[in-house]
């Protein structure tokens, strides 16, 4: 990955909270347009802090975050959030308007687009997330969690950021809802060209959807690479207090039978089993 292709460049980033807590140390990474990344790590490992540095909400204590050629230190936040959108873990922490339409229109209005343009943006965003018109006038809190999450994502999409970071998209969702949300993010990635970064503890979801994994521990990046490769090294994952999905562990326990340590899904495992005949 060369520098001139990357959309986000993080160089030697350190971030310390005002109370002295060192949240990020020596972070170096670059993100290319079109990637689907999972940011994983224990609670408190710095995942959310890093995301907030990427969208300019936090300024580096030292080092630099360059997004689309703009340095976050000197770029107004309204310019940053048009490029990197962050969807909160709990949509209720982000929703505060009295109806869904105003909620989604808030961002575009805030960056001072004309009402005409705001209308276009909101309509586009609701269409992409599949929010039916009957909900436009509804108060977000009367919607199901899945729908509230869609409103939250739509309100970010309306700013048309290239990169969308979604914090814990599947927390509290049942299996069917989780796949629905993830398929939707996959669609944003493949059909609409958005770069997606999910923050999650759900390793089977990571294995199935993410093409790249960045594993964090104690404010540092401990592993960064293609999903299969990162999961194939449990000893590195162990340092991040994570473990590969169960199906990967099953394959890793049966390597002498010919199974691959980087097996990510049940389907891959089945194909390898068939091939043994």
């Amino acid at each position, binding site marked *: 990955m060369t520098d001139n292709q990357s959309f986000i460049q993080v160089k030697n980033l350190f971030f310390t909270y005002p109370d002295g807590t060192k949240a990020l140390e020596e972070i170096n990474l670059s993100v290319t347009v079109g990637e689907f990344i999972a940011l994983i790590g224990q609670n408190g490992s710095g995942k959310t802090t890093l995301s907030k540095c990427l969208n300019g909400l936090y300024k580096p204590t030292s080092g630099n975050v360059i997004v689309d050629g703009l340095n976050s230190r000197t770029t107004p936040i309204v310019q940053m959030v048009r490029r990197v959108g962050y969807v909160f873990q709990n949509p209720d922490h982000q929703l505060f308007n009295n109806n869904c339409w105003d909620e989604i229109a808030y961002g575009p209005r805030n960056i001072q687009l004309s009402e005409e343009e705001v209308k276009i943006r909101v309509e586009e965003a609701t269409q992409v997330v599949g929010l039916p018109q009957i909900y436009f006038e509804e108060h977000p809190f009367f919607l199901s969690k899945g729908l509230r999450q869609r409103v939250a994502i739509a309100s970010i999409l309306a700013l048309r950021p290239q990169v969308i970071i979604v914090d814990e998209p599947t*927390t509290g969702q049942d299996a069917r809802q*989780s796949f629905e949300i993830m398929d939707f993010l996959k669609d944003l990635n493949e059909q609409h060209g958005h770069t997606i970064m999910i923050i999650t503890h759900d390793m089977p979801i990571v294995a199935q959807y993410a093409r790249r994994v960045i594993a964090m521990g104690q404010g540092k990046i401990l592993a960064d690479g293609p999903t299969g490769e990162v999961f194939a090294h449990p000893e590195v994952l162990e340092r991040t207090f994570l473990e590969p999905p169960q*199906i990967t*562990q099953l394959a890793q326990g*049966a390597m002498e*039978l010919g199974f691959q340590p980087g097996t990510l899904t049940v389907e891959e495992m*089945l194909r390898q*089993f068939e091939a043994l005949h």
Partner: protein
Amino acid sequence: MTLAIEIEDYSWQYLNTPKPALNHINLQVEEGTFLGVIGPNGSGKTSLAYSIDGLIPGQYNGIKHGQVKVFGKEVEAYDRGQLQRIVGVVFSDPEAQFTAMTVEDELVFGMENLGMSIPEIRERLEWVTELTGVGHLLLKPPYEISGGQKQRVALAAVLAMTPQVLILDEPTSMLDPVSRRRVFDVLARLKSEQRNTIIVIEHSLENLVPLASRMLMLSDGELTLEGETREFFQNMDLLVAQGIHPPGAMRFYYELKKSGQYPGSLPITLPEASQELKGLVARTRQP
């Protein structure tokens, strides 16, 4: 055999809703059972938990039919506050249960309400902080700690009161895999060291399955499947049709079984699955 919970032809419909949240439920839970409860969101899992600790019908308006008994006595027949000493609930949204300004006060609050002596409170405080690993948080305000820490504090606060029946509603939804395992380790210790009846509502099955002695599935307010854990998971067609996503190893064997390549009963844990795989591969390789 003592029955901790008896539910007979029980239905509950919240006021102004078109259909019952729980519909003709029949269930018996023996004391000391570790019961796993699964089902899609909106299937009635939380309503079931509220029905056992008396929040339903006490705090909600609606129509109740049938009976819910805890240790032989109907939930409404308990004096105010008495049932909550027997049944403790850890809510999926821990903030919903916090009232105090520090984590320590939060943990002590329930015990004070039960009228425990100061030495006993001190002893239990030490026990739960060690068990749940929240010692370093005691002086912090509950609203300043992370989601995962909140869940552990909520668990500690309920454990401190050592209820005979402990209900956990998605206790690990915000936790990373290691913290999640730590919560389940706590539950495993409770299971082996005490006679607690434990009911866990969970979407993530990997940690739940090895501990649960029985499992129950709700769909659309109805109890659609209940049984001993191993037998329960042999009904995989029914579970998958209800949108339940089994852990990877179990699904691997389920797919093999569907295509006629695996004749046995589905292994329910990773060690079982690994063991089984060796024999299975050896058999397929035989000429």
